[in-house]
């Protein structure tokens, strides 16, 4: 056998990773038109909120549960002013501080909830789809049963059960409640895709090579299935914000002592609105709308760039400039 090793047989594996990353992000770089606009607008809005969450102690003049500074109590239901840009609440809390710290809470809960529902839903979907059989049937039945309930109802039940237990009504409780509502979604998406990928010849080839089921799933199935997940996860994040706000609004979410939460603030502001006090409800509500919009744009943008059915390549259009002289010849 010709043992002439090629000129550079060793590519550092870091470069291989970079190569794979470059390939994975290629559709995003190639995206065009509306998809591109949506994606980057979404990135901008979402990033602004993430920044706000991380820099909350720096940006915000006050803490979210602070009602006095330098021994002076803040006004109750004070108008927006130089000291309190977004006014104060009936408990003398600074609305702006609560909006800014609220971003922290929302992001924490959403990140934890997404991480948990992905790490439960995706592996279960992979296993269920790849092995099939009785396990698959049982899991599909359970997941469909959960799926049949309204999200909010499951989340409320879980939040209620957990808040009466030792865990209490904190970030984790809210995250677990949201996780329970979303696991079936990831499970179904991944499982159904695995079932089609499982029949591909390259999966058979991997089995013929002697790969264990674990290796086949990890190296041959997972990467061909997982590309559907980021858009769904992002869209879900938007949904999760709304769910968390709903829980807070109904009083099953983050307890006021645990952190600022927009949904809770909006629920407290309901009675203020009738007496013409608009600032306590407007700003948290606006924050919810903006973050949900940002995440939705990001998710839809991702979906349109990654999903091959929706994707339009940049070379879809050409401008054919008339060649000078060609027209005359034709005439």
């Amino acid at each position, binding site marked *: 056998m010709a043992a002439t090793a*090629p000129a550079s047989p060793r*590519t550092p594996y870091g470069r291989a990773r970079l*190569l794979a990353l470059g390939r994975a992000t290629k559709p995003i770089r190639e995206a065009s038109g509306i998809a591109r606009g949506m994606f980057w607008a979404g990135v901008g809005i979402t990033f602004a909120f993430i920044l706000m969450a991380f820099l909350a102690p720096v940006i915000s003049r006050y803490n979210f549960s602070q009602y006095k500074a330098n021994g002076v109590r803040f006004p109750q239901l004070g108008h927006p002013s130089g000291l309190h840009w977004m006014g104060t609440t009936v408990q003398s809390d600074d609305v702006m501080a609560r909006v800014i710290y609220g971003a922290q809470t929302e992001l924490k809960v959403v990140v934890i909830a997404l991480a948990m529902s992905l790490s439960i839903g995706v592996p279960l979907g992979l296993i269920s789809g790849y092995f099939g059989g009785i396990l698959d049937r049982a899991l599909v039945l359970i997941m469909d049963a959960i799926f049949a309930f309204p999200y909010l109802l499951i989340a409320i039940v879980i939040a209620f059960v957990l808040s009466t237990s030792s865990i209490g009504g904190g970030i984790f409780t809210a995250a677990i409640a949201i996780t329970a509502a979303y696991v079936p979604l990831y499970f179904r998406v991944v499982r159904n895709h695995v079932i089609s990928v499982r029949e591909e*010849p390259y999966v058979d080839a991997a089995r013929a090579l002697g*790969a264990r089921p674990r290796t086949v799933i990890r190296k041959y199935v997972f990467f061909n299935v997982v590309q559907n997940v980021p858009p769904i996860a992002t869209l879900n994040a938007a949904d999760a914000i709304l769910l968390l706000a709903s829980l807070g609004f109904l009083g099953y979410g983050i307890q006021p002592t645990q952190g600022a939460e927009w949904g809770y603030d909006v629920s407290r502001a309901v009675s203020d609105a009738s007496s013409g006090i608009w600032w306590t409800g407007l700003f948290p509500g606006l924050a919810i709308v903006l973050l949900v919009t940002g995440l939705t744009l990001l998710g839809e943008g991702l979906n349109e760039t990654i999903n091959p059915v929706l994707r339009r390549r940049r070379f879809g259009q050409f401008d054919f400039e008339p060649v000078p002289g060609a027209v005359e010849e034709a005439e």
Partner: protein
Amino acid sequence: MRPEAAVARPDIAEGEPLVSIRDLRTYYSIRGSFADRLVGREGGVVKAVDGVSLDVRKGEVLGLVGESGSGKTTLGRTILGLVRATSGVVEFEGHDVAHVPEREFRALRRRMQVVFQDPHASLNPAMTIAQAVGHPLQIHGLERNRERLRIKVAEALERVGLAPAAQYMDKYPSDLSGGQKQRAVIARAIILNPVLLVADEPVSMLDMSVRAKILELMAELKRDFDLTYLYVTHDLATAKFFCDRIAIMYLGRIVEIGDAASIYADPKHPYTKALLRAIPEPDPARAVPRDLPRGEVPDAASPPLGCSFHPRCPLAFQPCGWESRDLRDLLEARWARKAGEAGVEEEEALFGNLDALSAPLISARLTPPRGRTAAEMLAVLERIRTEDPDEPFWKGVRRLEAVDGRLELDFHEPHDPTLGQSGDVEVACHLYNAPA
């Protein structure tokens, strides 16, 4: 995993059987209709491989030839353990791989590899060529050092003609052409240094210009690596120049097997003859009459009685397995052929619904519709017989008469043909081996 999984590697001499298949059956259960499933009725089975016995001798290229649906691919997949055998024995290097648990089989898989038909679909789109070709070595724990792995991959790629390897290693399958992908698939197969390579139509999806090159490469590799090939194909033309021996499959069974030269020079089975006549002849002056087999490959879920080929066979006679469904096909074909002619509608009305003939039975009973007699039906059949007395169907009819107002047809007892020596080849046909 142990670095060198201990696989018993008996020294098998050239020409000795490397794979021995004995009475192998692979059945697929088919799902019935939705209603059937609701009431729990079984959908039946397709006998994709139905009692095949075969030796693949070390160092040979055995061609497995047949039409779509003949079970040739399933046979290959059963040998590879990708499909579980229903019964029978597949002995590979002394192990019965048809019944060994998957866990133990994995170590044996190093010794047998596969090249599939579609090179694009058989490479993982998420792996670079280097990762794909090197993965078998990692799976079996044969090379842990990444740099040495890369060198081995480069060697394998250059061996299959993807040179310089550095140009291909970090590409993804979608960046390569069909021929290049198939070369990469072959590199992945040979990197484990197997003894048996199952090639399932390895060139049928490639461009004409690439086919010969890939086959040449496979022939070279066979010499260099001392390989044995099971070459599954529907293409007798390439099989002729590539195979040492050829087995012709029809509906899950081998109908003829022997040296390629003997089969091409003197085909015995009517099916083989028909397949050989179907090879396009570039010279129109030498073109042979193409009396291709009539009809289609029958439904494998309920194959014909006796010899599966008898409904399409021009030479079929008494023991070939004539049955009620053949009468139905005869009548339906006749009516379709003569649609619109005088008297055809009259005949159709006389026989009415032929569903009574849909079960595979060696006797047919037909009741005339109200106001008609069995004698009229008999007269029609007699007329059909006199119109075309050479139709093989009539050889299978043992008794045809009208009794008690019914038309009764009895066929000769069906016999399954078995493989028997005839000249240089083995053939399963009553023309050569009269039933006992």
